[in-house]
């Protein structure tokens, strides 16, 4: 049996009257790429701060790498690494100097640093660039170096804060390849983000909203389990006119232009398909095809949040 590397039990954090984190529980397995999703202000950063031992919870408990994040915060800190989009590299130091600097911060001996440096350079594909100034590196290489520095002390868990949002897709792909290698070697990867394209890379996801966990599962499970209203892809001519007509129908919840197609969210699939055919033939719009499509993670995320907010209002 693999022991869980993060165990969170009934964790809450209040600031005055405001409950930032509201009685959440979850656990993460070693080597897992775990995605913690939520919009700004959802309680994401508060949770991470508690897990990293920077903030004390109001109630409940978090065990991180076998230590109590509240009472044994100093020990927790030796077991974790952290990297965010706003890289914490020193631009006017060379690649090698950055590695040595971080090794020093984490209290490694000179011999340990030397050994880890070799490993980082190899893992990140920075061989030959050891003496280059960090500011001269491409965004992709900087990102790899930042990750290397975050794991120099061989932490059990690495926290990544929006690691690849808005970066070039090729860099992003290479970076996730590197993350996969770490995860294979047993390092647990804890990703926090509100970008759903990053979430697709995670083995398991947890969605936090208003301090509470409202959904969890693998990307595929989330798409299958939390059925959104059906989304139809409509291929027809006169798309603008067609959209205008459809948006007036009460069974169409939402519609938008999507490239050469229309995407419409409807109340019920069969009803909608029949009505589209009917309306289009009346208006002499020619319909090529209409298919139900898989929701994206973003569709699922938005629909979950909308449902949550509706029930809060009731």
């Amino acid at each position, binding site marked *: 049996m693999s022991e869980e590397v993060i165990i969170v039990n009934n964790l809450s954090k209040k600031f005055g009257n405001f409950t930032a984190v509201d009685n959440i529980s979850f656990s993460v397995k070693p080597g897992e790429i775990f995605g913690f999703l939520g919009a700004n202000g959802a309680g994401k950063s508060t949770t991470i701060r508690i897990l990293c031992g920077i903030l004390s919870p109001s109630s409940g408990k978090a065990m991180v790498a076998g230590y109590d994040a509240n009472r044994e915060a100093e020990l927790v800190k030796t077991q974790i690494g952290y990297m965010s989009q706003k890289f914490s590299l020193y631009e006017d130091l060379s690649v090698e100097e950055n590695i040595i600097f971080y090794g020093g911060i984490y209290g490694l001996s000179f011999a340990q640093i030397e050994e880890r440096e070799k490993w980082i350079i190899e893992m990140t594909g920075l061989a030959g660039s050891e003496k280059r100034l960090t500011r001269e590196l491409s965004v992709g290489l900087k990102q790899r170096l930042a990750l290397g520095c975050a794991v120099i002390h061989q932490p059990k868990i690495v926290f990544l804060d929006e690691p690849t949002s*808005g970066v070039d897709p090729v860099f992003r792909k290479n970076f996730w390849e590197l993350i*996969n290698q770490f995860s294979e070697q047993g390092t647990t990867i804890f990703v926090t983000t509100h970008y759903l394209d990053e979430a697709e890379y995670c083995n398991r996801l947890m969605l936090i909203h208003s301090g509470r966990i409202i959904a969890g599962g693998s990307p595929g499970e989330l798409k299958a389990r939390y059925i959104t209203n059906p989304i139809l892809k409509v291929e027809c001519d006169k798309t603008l006119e067609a959209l205008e007509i459809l948006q007036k129908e009460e069974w169409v919840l939402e519609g938008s232009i999507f490239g050469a197609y229309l995407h419409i969210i409807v109340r019920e699939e069969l009803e909608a398909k029949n009505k589209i055919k009917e309306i289009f033939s009346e208006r002499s719009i020619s319909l090529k095809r209409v298919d139900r499509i898989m929701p994206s993670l973003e569709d699922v995320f938005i629909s979950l949040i909308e449902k949550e907010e509706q029930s809060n209002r009731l």
Partner: protein
Amino acid sequence: MTELMIEVRDLKKSFGEVSAVRDLNLEVFKGEMFGIIGPDGAGKTTLIRMLCGVLEPEAGQGRILGYDLIKEIDEIKKSIGYFSQRFSLYGDLTVDENIEFFAEIHGVSDYQERREKLLEFTRLHPFRNRLAEKLSGGMKQKLALACSLIHTPKIIFLDEPTTGVDPVSRRDFWKILSDLVHQGITIVLTTPYLDEAERCSRVGFMNLGKFMAIDSPQGIKKFVSDKVIELIPDEIGRAYKLLKQISEIKELQALGDRLNLLVKDEKEVMGGIYELFEREGLKVKSWRVIAPSLENVFITLQKISQG
């Protein structure tokens, strides 16, 4: 016939030794939503700034809305809107005042009615008296868009409009863009998010200062001649490690609970995978050939351009 809104030929711009845009050609028609994608440093922002008349091209010629790109810049500026991440709002002015300020800059004296429409359109009505610095990121972005639309431009240029915005606001923003297209406004935008490029009527992939491919999001996928297999194994970590060693798999991507494989011949590769998995005690839970994503297109085109 569709009206030509943007037409540029052999456009060129260098910064010192670095040529940012070279011999670039582009045509954009009325009512289009044209998306520019490409790696960092491809020249996307430089191109947008030249099309807006903010940056003077070094060579080449063009017409925006029929006006000459070199000689009639002032006319062009009057009829277009420009919005980027660097768009500066005045934090100590209210929503209303910010729009008023931009109306004055653009010389729109009778802006009241237009402002009402824009506030309604961006759903910022309830916040009209709030200071801009007190708005959330998503609302700031909508206000910036409203400001850049005050003079009723015919074309609007958006440079990475949704970078750093949360998914709910992003969805909201795209609804607004869809409405703009609906009103007949032409939109040209750059984006690092390929799911946004899927929403465009045409997409241009830019690299090394020029367009390598321009087509509809569906059409541009023909550049990927390989097949994309989506495979769900029972143990993702081990499966990923094993498949990494198969040379017939040109690209391997681990996506949470599934793997995406880029291959020449799916039957041949899957045959091999079944055997390998059998030997290693792994299972293929399911597999299918899926349409290439724009990410596959992006990676393929970039490889081609690197030779």
